């Protein structure tokens, strides 16, 4: 199979790679770009831990063909930190004990960011709706919901 040249913005930086036809975005990010923050959970859109933002919109990178992001902007958890400072969502996740094993956390943070970017003050139901494509086995979701609501309410700490 011939390689397809692909250029896109990855966390604000232009990247150019060659992908095989049919390669999904998750594999392209992890194996070709080396960004390991989107996780491989189920590979079929059932768990949400591979979530990334494409032009600001939440997508499952495991179900996205890499070649469809040409010329577009892809954001992952790797780009969330602002220099040495954690993003308010990351800070709130820590303060609210919203991570245990941590495997769902990258996807949860991206889903939360997608929500707050378009709706800075969501209510509890909107937060639940926003993370409903992401499963977590450790926390019981409550600490995650509270962390997101804390940032939404302008209170970045517990």
């Amino acid at each position, binding site marked *: 199979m011939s390689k397809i040249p692909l250029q896109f913005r990855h966390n604000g930086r232009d990247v150019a790679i060659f992908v095989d036809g049919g390669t999904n975005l998750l594999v392209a990010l992890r194996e070709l770009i080396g960004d390991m923050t989107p996780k491989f*959970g*189920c590979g*079929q*859109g*059932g*768990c949400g831990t591979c979530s990334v933002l494409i032009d600001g919109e939440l997508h499952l990178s495991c179900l996205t063909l890499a070649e469809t992001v040409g010329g577009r902007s892809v954001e992952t958890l790797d780009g969330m930190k602002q220099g040495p400072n954690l993003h308010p969502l990351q800070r709130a996740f820590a303060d609210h*004990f919203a*991570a*245990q*094993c*941590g495997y769902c956390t990258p996807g949860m943070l991206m889903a939360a960011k997608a929500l707050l970017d378009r709706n800075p003050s969501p209510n509890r139901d909107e937060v*639940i*709706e926003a*993370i*409903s494509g*992401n*499963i*977590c*086995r*450790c*926390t*019981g*979701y*409550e*600490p*995650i*919901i509270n962390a997101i609501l804390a940032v939404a309410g302008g209170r970045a700490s517990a």
Partner: protein
Amino acid sequence: MTRHRGRGIASINYPIGMNLGGDPSQALVHSNPSGKFTVALSSIDLGQGMKSVTRQICAETLGVPVEDVYVDTADSDTGPHCMGSFASRGTHRVGNAVMAAAREARGVMMEAAAEELEVNAADLETDGRGNIHVKGAPHRSISTKDVAIAAQFKQGKTISGRGIFLVPLSAVDPETGEMSPATCYAHACLVAEVDVDDETGEVAMVRMDSAYELGRALNPRLVEQQLVGGAWMGVSHALYETTEPHYPETVHGPRDFVEYLMPGPGDICPHDIAVLERPAPDGPFGAKGPGEMCANPVLPAVANAIFNAVGVRIDDLPITPEKVLRAIKAQGGARPQARR
């Protein structure tokens, strides 16, 4: 279609750790020339907080700030042997091993400090802020860093300690068959409230109220996160999760997260938790462990709540809508029980 509200209660007692083979875990503690300490373990932190709690236990036993302790774990090539992270044993078993290792290391540290201050080690105490001083004379003081440097470069001592926790063998009484399989027990009680739909058989969680007695809570926020999250593992076992829905037939078994059901963010309900602390005599600083038992009382409480709501007893997990519906049909309709 009617939704029936039901309430169920369950109490458990939970033996911490296991008995077979004495359930040992080991820990090693040593100082670095910077005056910081490393705890070497091979016990796994799965996110439950083993690294945080063993760090606290080590710092408290040594008498140094928690920032001065680093826990290096999860590599069985470099850490001493551990049976594993299961049976709610981490805080109790590994904690006790860390405590023993830190106590031995503290003994050497105090001897080294005594040599520097030219006093008897028995007259020294730690201030918990990184200094060792003569009791009643805080000005006769030396920092743990200076002690570590003196031990390493001048006295030729290793400030280190070894620790193991092993449950004494409990023999079986030949007359009665009795034995003591565990050294301490934690306890919990949980009340679950559910709504059962008698047309679809679906069970929705409405609220949970619980009380957990788990010895001293060494890190209350970690205990809380265990209890909050663990309850939903219990709900998940009670209502959703199975690898063999038609055991022993493997047909329709789940193959992935899309088919292996578990609660989503929209399924959760309020959960009010009370933590009761009755320190365990053989626990590190009185701790038992919140591990597995945060899920255990949920299953019988939910099954009882379903019985209370529609009058059907389901003793086969998970309690799926199909099982609820078949049981309701078999008894000729929902029979709500008295609310208590």
